[in-house]
């Protein structure tokens, strides 16, 4: 997923305006590390079967599915398989990683 599509919430500079006593953090790609390395099963989307209902996009707990292209960001996808489970068209297959 391209960084341009990410909504800018608050910048690391913006967070510095708070006094250091407040444990404030902000949403950003990769805040939890490269979670893609946890993956055993890789979701593969068959675009021909896909009806673009966006259920996978809604259910993805890591927000790694792009809303427009439905491309999956494998750097952060943990391979949980929720997208494949929810897909009404069975367009997502979970393939074992090598």
């Amino acid at each position, binding site marked *: 997923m391209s960084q341009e599509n990410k909504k800018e*919430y*608050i910048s690391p500079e913006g*967070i510095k305006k*708070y*006094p*250091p*006593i*407040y*444990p*404030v*953090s*902000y*949403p950003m790609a990769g805040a939890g590390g490269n979670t893609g390395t946890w993956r055993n099963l890789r979701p593969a989307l068959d675009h021909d079967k896909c009806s673009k209902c966006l259920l996978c996009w809604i259910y993805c707990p890591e927000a790694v599915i792009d809303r427009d292209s439905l491309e999956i960001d494998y750097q952060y996808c943990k391979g949980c398989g929720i997208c494949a489970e929810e897909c009404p068209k069975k367009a997502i297959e979970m393939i074992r990683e090598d």
Partner: protein
Amino acid sequence: MRTILDKGTHIVAQAVKNAKVDVVAAYPITPQTAIVEALSSMIEKGEMNCRFLPVEGEHSTMAACAAASAMGARTFTATASQGLLYMHEVLHMVAGCRFPVVMANVNRAVFAPWTLWVDHQDSLAQRDTGWIQYYCSSLQETYNTLIQAFRVAENIKLPVMVNLDGFILSHCTMSVDVLDQETVDKFLPPFQPEWKLDPQNPTAYASVTPSNEYSQFRALLAQDEQKAKEVIVRAAEEYKELTGMWDGDLLDFYRCEDAEVFVLAMGSMASELRLSIDMLRQEGIKAGVIRLRVYRPFPEESISAALPDGSTLVVLDRNYDFGMHGGILFNECKASLYDRGGKIKVLNQVMGIGGVDITYQDMAASIKALLA
């Protein structure tokens, strides 16, 4: 200013009303119940512009207070005994999150066996949560301290617990001078935190933090616990300038000027103790009272400064320090005076457990027996 005659629970509610609290979350427990009943009734009648959250238990009470405070609301709750113990986990969280929640705790001894009456075991068991703890000796002081508590909490960004003895203060009727709303507003401007939850500008808060950063937050918390001492003193002094009322700052002294024997206690028994001191003075014992008004942060420097070399400190504890000899205040006083090289004799009596009545004669007799 007007003088009213009412019981302790209603005086607490009056102070909370005057403090213009935005959110009250609470679960009833004896002897606190009448506080939240009074607040609930005032909110229902529209006398307070405040949201009342009736929750299913004290753990949720404090969680609701944390969330309300994170939204920038001035937040209050009240509890006692088992309710306070049930909150314990969330007390740590609220202090660590730097939410300035204010809570009235009506001191009641803890289970087992079941009891309803006062001692200080419930709140002293919350010592290491990071909460500031006041102990009041009269209803006027309870009112004054609650107003000061919001000021202190919001200034240093730490939660404050205001303790009053169950039944002896909570259900006793006394006359109290209640401030005009304009005077309270002058002392207590609206709560304006530098950070609060903002849906337009979302941030996460206090999520999993790497060790180095975590230890920095905890070090700042420890530093600010110490800094709170000067904030507490300043609040008491400015309150006195505005209202003429004074209940002491970290400590409150009685007949200590020429004393050789100092008696330290807290809560309502420390008020009664003045009569014991007058009695001892008549018998030729030069005694005075050091009333501990703030237990956390512990005023070690002020206690040490009040005691000349060669003097005796008698500590009266309404609690047990299980596994140590004597009570909790006794052991904390001994630790505070360690640097004095044994030049101050420290003696201890545990009394009044589970609401056993303490008269001034009892305390005078105990002090004399310890000195003998």
